[in-house]
Structures are given as C-alpha cells and as structure tokens.
C-alpha cells in the first residue's frame, strides 16, 4: 500500500518542479506577462525573453491543439499587441525558437547580447525555406 503511494507522490512532486512558464529579462514585469499567457489554456509551456522594448514569446501548444498552431499563434500575437502596443512583441509556436529561448535563459545572456539574440531569433522565425 505504501509503495504505490510513495511512487505517486514522487511523480506528482516531479510534475510540480518543472517550470512551465518562464520569463527572462532585465526588469520585473514578469508576473504580468506570465498571467497573460496562463489565461490561454492551449499553451502547454512558454518562455518569454525580453529586453527594453523588444519581447520574444516562445510557446509550445498542447498536443491536440497543434492542428491550429498557426491560428493560435496569430491569436496570441494579437493579444500581446493589444496589451503592449508600444513594445515590439513577437510570438512564435516553433520548437526551435522555444529551444533557443531556453538556452538563452540557461546561459544567462545579458544586455546587448540579449538584444542581438532576440533580433536573431525573430528573423529566424520569419524564414520560409
């Protein structure tokens, strides 16, 4: 009786540990952005990178919603543009962008380099071939 209970508890613990919504950047309006994303129930995980007026929102859509990936991406983009009209926000549901954004957070890249990286990722996401 105790063994399966222990296993389940450990598994649940593990689930809570993983950070699903990450916001990385110099100033601290992170919780606001996080709340905005958590509203959308089709987002499984997200990593937001920002520096000054430039923001990159990398999301991973939940498996069954992936059929509408492009539409949901656009929806989220519009939402962010309404909320932050003076900032240059870019939303991407692409795995590469998400992966690179996580790398940026892991390597703790700062300042100018961070700005360059964000621009680089935005250009990459816009590529078509």
């Amino acid at each position, binding site marked *: 009786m105790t063994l399966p209970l222990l296993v389940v508890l450990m598994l649940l613990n593990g689930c809570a540990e993983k950070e699903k919504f990450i916001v990385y950047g110099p100033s601290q309006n992170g919780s606001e952005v996080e709340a905005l994303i958590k509203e959308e129930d089709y987002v499984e995980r997200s990593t937001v990178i920002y520096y000054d007026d430039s923001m990159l929102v990398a999301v991973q859509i939940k498996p069954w919603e992936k059929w509408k990936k492009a539409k949901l991406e656009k929806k989220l983009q519009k939402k962010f543009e309404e909320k932050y009209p003076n900032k240059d926000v870019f939303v991407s549901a692409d795995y*590469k962008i998400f992966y690179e954004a996580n790398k940026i957070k892991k390597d703790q890249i700062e300042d100018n380099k961070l700005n360059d990286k964000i621009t680089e990722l935005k250009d990459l996401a816009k590529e078509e071939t």
Partner: protein
Amino acid sequence: MEKEQYQQLEQNVTPKPPYLKNVAKAFFVGGLICAIGQAVSLFYIIFFNFTEATAGNPTVATMVFFAMLLTGLGLYKRIGQFAGAGSAVPVTGFGNAVISAAIEHRSEGLVLGVGGNLFKLAGSVVLFGVVSAFFVALIKYILVTIGVVSW
C-alpha cells in the same frame, strides 16, 4: 474443364494474402521510418539553425539519402518484401523507386537511359501529386471567395 469451374478451383487453391499480418507489418515499418524521420528533423532543429518550418527540406533530403544507400546495397527490396506499403508510401519509397530505375538504366547512357527512365515508376506520383494539389487549392480558393472558410 469449363472456364468458370477452373476459376472456382483457382480461387480455392490460391492462398489468400494475410491481410492483417501485412497491415501490422506495414504499420510498424512505416511508423519506424517516420520515427527516424522525426529524429532526423529534431537533429537538424537542435544542432543547426533550422526551425520546425524550415527543417522539412533537409529532413526529406536525408531520408532520400538513406533510401539511396539502402537501395544501392540491395537492402531496400528486402525491407519492401517484408513491409509492403510501409516502405513504399513514405518518401523513402519514392526515393527507392527513382534510384532503382536510375541504377537499372545506367547501361543505356546518362541521357536516354538514366534521364529518360528515372521517373518510370515515380512519374505518376509526381504528376498526380501536382494535379491534386492544384485542385485542392482551387477548391479552397473557391470556398474562401464564397465565404464558407477563411484562409
């Protein structure tokens, strides 16, 4: 013996293809090939500067490369005998069709032999793929214009 009688006899004697077994084999081999394709895709996404959107091209190229190696070594036909549609339907099957034709017709030279016969088996795939893509796009365009769906 009359024709109908013989055809009846033939039906009785000829073994039925093991459909269920064939479906299972095709499913697993086809799935395996697609899993390998996904691994290749992830490889390009993680180690190179490709996004999910742009990784399609190098992935297909790599899969066709694998098909070329297997075809040239005579291994793809063994996989094909086992898997049937499982190895014929993915892009590796298309690669195998083109490459095996190319190898076969080398003896007639590059232009008339290889060039002329390269798409002997795969020509239909290319033709009907393009034609059906055209019609699907046309139908979608008409539906959007009417207002039933949006882009």
